[in-house]
């Protein structure tokens, strides 16, 4: 085994242990945007799978989170995760360092998610529930810990109703609006980055976000 691969494999193990997760992943990734992945990318381009796995582990949690939130289904999120990274591995030779690896992998994931959302829009599925790995339907809000409600069942119920309304309002958006809103509101990305990921301009991303918030506000207005 080449020493390089061994060193990178060690890093794979280590990075798994070292992974530091919290809800502000986007901010941390921004802070680390200067960290250079090029060495790993070049090794992966030479066919070094261990190097590719190191890259995967830097971004896969965020990718899975995005796919899970957009699809609302564990099996669908799993399919998008697998397809995205396999596609990235097969085509990493085409990566020309014109953007960051982060933007590149997110571009692959967002395209897959958009395809998924478009297909689902034609089927008019309800995203208020998710399907877990065993095929059971689970309410999205069961997964969200609501510290404010505590042991207050009345407030808990209100919070659930609000969550259901939000989930329903989100389904009224076009796939592209849903994606821009997700990347901005939940993932905290800059509009310029969102534009790069969706192969469009910052101005278009801005307009799409504007339309998305208008639609959501009017859908949720009767609640206030």
């Amino acid at each position: 085994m080449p020493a390089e691969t061994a060193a990178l494999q060690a890093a794979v193990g280590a990075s798994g242990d070292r992974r530091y997760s919290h809800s502000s992943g986007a901010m941390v990734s921004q802070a680390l945007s200067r960290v250079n992945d090029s060495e790993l990318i070049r090794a992966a381009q030479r066919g070094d799978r261990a190097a590719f796995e190191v890259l995967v582990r830097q971004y896969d949690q965020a990718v899975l989170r995005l796919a899970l939130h957009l699809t609302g289904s564990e099996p669908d999120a799993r399919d998008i995760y697998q397809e995205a990274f396999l596609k990235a591995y097969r085509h990493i030779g085409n990566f020309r360092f014109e953007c960051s690896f982060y933007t590149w992998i997110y571009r692959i994931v967002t395209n897959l998610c958009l395809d998924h959302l478009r297909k689902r829009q034609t089927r008019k599925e309800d995203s208020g529930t998710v399907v877990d790995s065993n095929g059971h339907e689970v309410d999205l809000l069961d997964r969200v810990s609501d510290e404010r409600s505590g042991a207050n069942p009345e407030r808990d119920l209100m919070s659930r109703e609000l969550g259901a309304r939000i989930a329903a309002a989100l389904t009224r958006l076009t796939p592209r609006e849903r994606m821009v809103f997700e990347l901005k509101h939940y993932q905290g990305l800059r509009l310029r980055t969102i534009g790069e990921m969706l192969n469009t301009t910052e101005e278009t991303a801005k307009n799409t976000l504007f339309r998305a918030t208008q639609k959501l506000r009017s859908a949720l207005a009767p609640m206030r």
Partner: protein
Amino acid sequence: MKCEWMKENLVLYMYDELADDAKFEFVHHVQHCLSCRQELEAAQAFKEEMSAAPAAEVSPNFLAANRMQLQEALEHAEQSRSFWSKFIFDFAGWMQQIKLAPALTAALLIIGFAGGSLTTWRLALGDTNAGPLPVATSNTGSQDYNIAAIDSISTNPDSNQITIKYDTLHPQTIAGAATDPRIQELLLMATRNNRNSDVRLDSIDLLKTKAQDNEVRDALISALRYDRNPGVRLKALDGLKGYVKDDIHVRDSVLEALLHDANPGVRSEAISLLEPVKADSSVHEALEVLAQHDPNQYIKTQSKKYLASTPHLD
């Protein structure tokens, strides 16, 4: 006109995407316009409502299951290459492999050296009728060496003799001053010794005083990022401490250690090294996150302390 502009930019203000001058104009207008103030309040209430359904976190089990499945799939996956790239020899990649495969490099050197010496010896003897050299050695011949590879096996049906041709690795020792380029090259090689962390510790300890050399600094950064042994990572940090301010790659790797390293000692050392550059935007952003969310109380307190002593640059 102003109110129209305000409505168009409301979303950008809410999501902190407005430029500083536009932000100032926006706030100034809202302070003096009741209807726009009400609009802003309604928009902020909407944003808060939307946060009632935060993105569900991925469970560790789900993530682990996905990683395992991906690993299996990658074993069977092949990278697509363009038609022409199949015929292009990747010289850089080959060099990288050779450089990072000390055993193979050493074996090639030894074979070359042995071949050269043998030829010289034969020429010096002037024995042109010596015939083929015996390749078989005594049974104990291989005991002093490590066998690197078996090249061929052949059997003589008449004598029942088996002839095995193999390559050996000869253990060697070298002594010299720390400034000797050959010693430094071997020390750099030792930092990538995956079998023995003591060797890595010793080599990093010796190299850390020579971090002014770019090659040494790269080796220290690599050790800080990828070495499994926290002691090695701590020594690498020690060697890099004088370069946090001037070398952006060093700063990034120390910041990475602060955010990702599993060892609290390494993280504590990393945060102390970042004190002189706490005003740097990347460091500042990371400190803000750590001050709020880090489970390690010491890191949290230090981050708050650094932030308190740094002017906020908004």
